[in-house]
């Protein structure tokens, strides 16, 4: 205490002694001190204001920081598997490796060694970058596809040198693999999304994504495609992944595509394609009670695995250029004149219109003659009632039936009667799309009354003018699917269920309620038995005797459709067994001659296969069918859509 006092006392003495001098010094130094500290505070204030603007007022830096570290990665879901009706695997997924680039992060790239690894030239490298920059949705910080589908060896080499190629990374995803080379047209294929699809998808699809382009892959894209997931990862300044963003809080998992069971029977399909090889045409087999398509062959076919891998584009172009049009899905799109099988339909409509009765007989002396018009017929017993006329496929008989239907005095005008016929045909599913769950279904062609008005003038035509329609010729065009559907309708004695290709999605059976509805045709069910008996006779001792299988009651009808471009189309449709039918089938072999020569045996073998699970009882027939090469004939580009005339 004393010390402190003494200390203060000292100061006091010194201060008073040197007061003026010290006072001046203190004043001056205090000013300088204040000036200096003023400068410090000024600088500090400037910096604090700068901090305020950077950190509080300007929020763009938050975004910049996020752009620096946040990388959005797409997780591609596994595409759904495809199986046949017996759960035999048809389509699965295989790994493919795509090379991506984030242009912003490409630094110090050794272009020479990079090009070596990828196997491109420097010019291509530059061109590639130019192309990427022109793409929609391009951003310097976003990943763009640089090279698609690296080979596994390139991928391995690339992975080794990944660190040297900053800004590039490989994304593994899956591509389709087809276990069998069958049913290419049904399964379809996937391809890259187009700009249009990307735009329409509201940003869901990105450049380089795959999407179903045809077949089931297209119609069931939503189910098969699954839902893409997003993963946000943090990357460091060298764009190396550093972990999940907020522990994956904003991530969404990819939802795998659904597994789909087709209605196809693989064994039946294999047989159908084998029998149809080196022929042009179609086979459609339907289970009448459900409308399920058991087999659908479009010949010539192609191997679906051609649409896998980086050469898919080249393969596509090759197939596109092939004059036999392997990409054309004939069963659902190609209209053929049905020929004599149309007589079955006319028999039913005639009865319903009460101009034809089971015991109606017409005389046939080698054909139909009326007013200078002649439609030829082959030699057979005459006159015959309806059932017998079907069995021998009498042309004259059905010309009469057609005449009585169209010139029916019940209707005031011919066109009214014809329109009635048109409506009947429509109720059989002809001349319009059935609504199959496959892409590219055609309508076929059934001329309307107005069609003939245009040609002949209104009221200037009648039954005889269009008589060839009565025997399934003329302008008529029916797709094989429509033929098979009509067969199923006959088998069901009056109704059909829209043919469809998907049997089950995951565990949900018959997923589309549309495919449960019975579509009754406009012909009363009571008119069917006599026609069906006729069809049975066709096989048992009629024109399609070759199709007979002991122990199975097959009901069928051959057709030989004339066409001006070449040999007749060989057509056959049938269902079996007669009671409680399990399969309805339509076969068209283009330019092959009589229906009984090619189409009927093929149908018969397939019926046998489906009903008995084997087709080895008639090896000679199988051999003749398999070896039959009908493609050496001149192939015409429009051979599938021929308009034929009865003359």
């Amino acid at each position: 205490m004393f010390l402190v006092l003494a200390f203060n006392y000292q100061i006091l003495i010194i201060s008073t002694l040197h007061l003026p001098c010290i006072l001046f010094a203190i004043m001056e130094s205090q000013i300088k001190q204040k000036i200096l500290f003023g400068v410090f505070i000024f600088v500090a204030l400037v910096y604090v204001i700068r901090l305020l603007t950077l950190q509080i007022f300007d929020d763009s830096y938050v975004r910049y920081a996020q752009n620096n570290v946040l990388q959005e990665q797409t997780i591609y879901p596994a595409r759904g598997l495809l199986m046949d009706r017996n759960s035999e695997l048809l389509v699965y997924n295989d790994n493919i490796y795509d090379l991506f680039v984030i242009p912003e992060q490409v630094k110090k790239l050794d272009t020479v060694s990079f090009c070596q690894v990828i196997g491109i030239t420097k010019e291509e490298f530059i061109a590639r970058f130019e192309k990427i920059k022109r793409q929609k949705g391009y951003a310097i910080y976003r990943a763009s596809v640089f090279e698609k589908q690296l080979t596994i060896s390139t991928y391995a080499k690339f992975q080794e040198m990944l660190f040297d190629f900053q800004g590039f990374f490989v994304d593994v995803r899956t591509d389709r693999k087809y276990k069998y080379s069958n049913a290419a047209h049904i399964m379809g294929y996937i391809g890259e999304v187009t700009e249009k699809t990307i735009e329409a998808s509201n940003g869901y699809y990105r450049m380089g994504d795959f999407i179903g382009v045809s077949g089931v892959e297209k119609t069931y894209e939503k189910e098969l495609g699954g839902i893409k997931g997003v993963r946000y990862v943090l990357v460091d300044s060298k764009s190396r992944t550093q972990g999940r963003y907020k522990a994956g809080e904003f991530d969404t998992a990819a939802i795998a595509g659904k597994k789909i069971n087709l209605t196809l029977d693989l064994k039946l399909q294999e047989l159908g394609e084998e029998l149809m090889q080196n022929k042009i045409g179609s086979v459609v087999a339907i289970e009448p009670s459900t409308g399920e398509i058991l087999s659908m062959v479009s010949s010539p076919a192609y191997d679906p695995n051609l649409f896998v891998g980086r050469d898919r584009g080249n393969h596509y172009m090759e197939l596109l250029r092939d004059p036999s049009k392997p990409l054309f899905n004939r069963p659902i799109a190609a209209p053929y004149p049905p020929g004599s099988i149309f007589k079955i339909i006319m028999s039913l409509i005639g009865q319903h219109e009460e101009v034809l009765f089971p015991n109606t007989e017409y005389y046939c002396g080698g054909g139909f003659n009326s007013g200078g018009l002649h439609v030829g017929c082959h030699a057979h017993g005459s006159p015959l009632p309806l059932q017998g006329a079907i069995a021998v496929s009498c042309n004259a008989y059905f010309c009469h039936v057609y005449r009585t239907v169209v010139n029916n005095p019940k209707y005031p005008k011919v066109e009214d009667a014809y329109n009635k016929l048109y409506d009947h045909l429509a109720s059989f599913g002809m001349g319009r799309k059935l609504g199959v769950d496959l892409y590219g279904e055609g309508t076929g062609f059934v001329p309307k009354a107005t069609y003939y008005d245009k040609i002949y003038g209104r009221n200037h035509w009648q039954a005889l003018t269009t008589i060839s329609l009565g025997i399934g010729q003329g302008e008529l065009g029916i797709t094989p699917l429509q033929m098979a559907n009509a067969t199923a309708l006959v088998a069901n004695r009056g109704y059909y269920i829209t043919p469809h290709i998907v049997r089950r999605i995951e565990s949900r059976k018959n997923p589309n309620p549309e495919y449960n509805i019975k579509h009754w045709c406009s012909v009363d069910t009571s008119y069917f038995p006599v026609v069906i008996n006729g069809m049975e006779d066709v096989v048992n001792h009629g024109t399609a005797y070759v199709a007979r299988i002991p122990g199975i009651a097959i009901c069928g009808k051959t057709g030989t459709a004339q066409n001006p471009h070449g040999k007749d189309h060989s057509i056959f449709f049938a269902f079996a067994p007669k009671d409680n039918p399990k399969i309805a089938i339509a076969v068209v072999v283009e330019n092959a001659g009589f229906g009984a020569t090619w189409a009927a045996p093929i149908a018969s073998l397939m019926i046998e296969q489906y009903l008995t699970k084997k087709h080895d009882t008639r090896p000679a027939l199988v051999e003749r069918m398999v070896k039959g090469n009908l493609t050496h004939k001149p192939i015409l580009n429009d051979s599938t859509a021929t308009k034929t005339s009865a003359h």
Partner: protein
Amino acid sequence: MTQQQPKPAHIDWISLTLYVVFVLSGLLCIYASVFKETNPNIYDMDMNYGKQLLWIVISLFIALLILLVDEKLFYAFAYGFYGITIILLIATFAIGAEIKGSSSWIRIGGFQIQPAEFAKFGTALALAKFLSGYNINFKDIKVKLISFAIIGLPMIIILLQNETGSALVFASFSLVLYREGLPGWLLLGGVALAILAILALLFPPLNIIIFLGILAVIVLVFVRRTMLLIFLTIGIVAISSIYVSTVNYAFENILQAHQRTRINVLLGKEVDLKGAGYNVQQSLIAIGSGGAFGKGYLEGTQNKFRFVPEQSTDFIFCTIGEEFGFLGSLIFVILYMLLLYRLLVMAERQRSKFNRVYGYSLIAILFFHFLINIGMTLGLMPVIGIPLPFFSYGGSALLSFTILLFIFIRLDANRVNELKSFE
């Protein structure tokens, strides 16, 4: 006989506490900017923070040593220290290791020493001793020249070592000279020259000369013209014109390309986000994305994922800005100002001129580092690589600042003894 050991009560605990706070915060920031989640061990000697921890221990030991030795030692050996640092500086030319384009390092074992850092306190001691000598009047032109020489010698050597930043630090001694009697207008003149230099880089020299001429005419029209004033004005314009042209010439011909780029980027004449501008851009993103309260310790993405180059050394402030936000930055600035203010108060209470000059040297150096380093991270100053005292990673810098500060604390603790010696 007066006691030579300072009593704990005489040590300035405020500045010492601030020192400890800074050094420890610095360590945390260094840890944050280089740690890996897979290896969070702070004692890992392979990592910068492990080394820094070692340097902190060494620094504290040296600090304790300084507090324990006789304060007269610093006065007595002031020129000796200065001489040693100059010799070390020159020695780097012979045995120096080149690191990052500058040849200012001496390698000792696993560590590198940068003599330029230690030259600061050698110079401070020498200047303090010289100015506190008998019959030294700063008005004397010889005194001025010798003062400038003491400051200029290490500055030139360091400049030759390509350490522009460290060399510029010596310019801060002008604040000390100002306190000791250098007229204010000289400092103002210096600032004016700096502004002119910036203008010279921004605009063509001829435009500036014409502008200055017009300005001079206007001044002469409006004030009462005396012969002296007219000559003075013409003289200033003439000297400015020569200066502006020289600066422009020097910029184009003497500075190296990367230095030109840095300055151009700062002046906004060039946009170069990949090169020199990248550091600043990433630094701004780091600080700017911190927001009001920061992203949290060890949560800064810029920081963690190495977007800011030199983050643990020159750009250490980014860590504060990003992880602790505006609040953290503000606290830092306030604490730093508090330290400067405390040191100013301490400097002014010194009875000994030696102590005072030394104190002002310390203040000037600390302020200059703050001005350049923080200004650089905020994009307001050119990218000049000088560390943020007590925070930046680097043993030489930490040790040098510690010695600088603790010598002053030691001197300050003894002022009571000095008073007693009057008895």
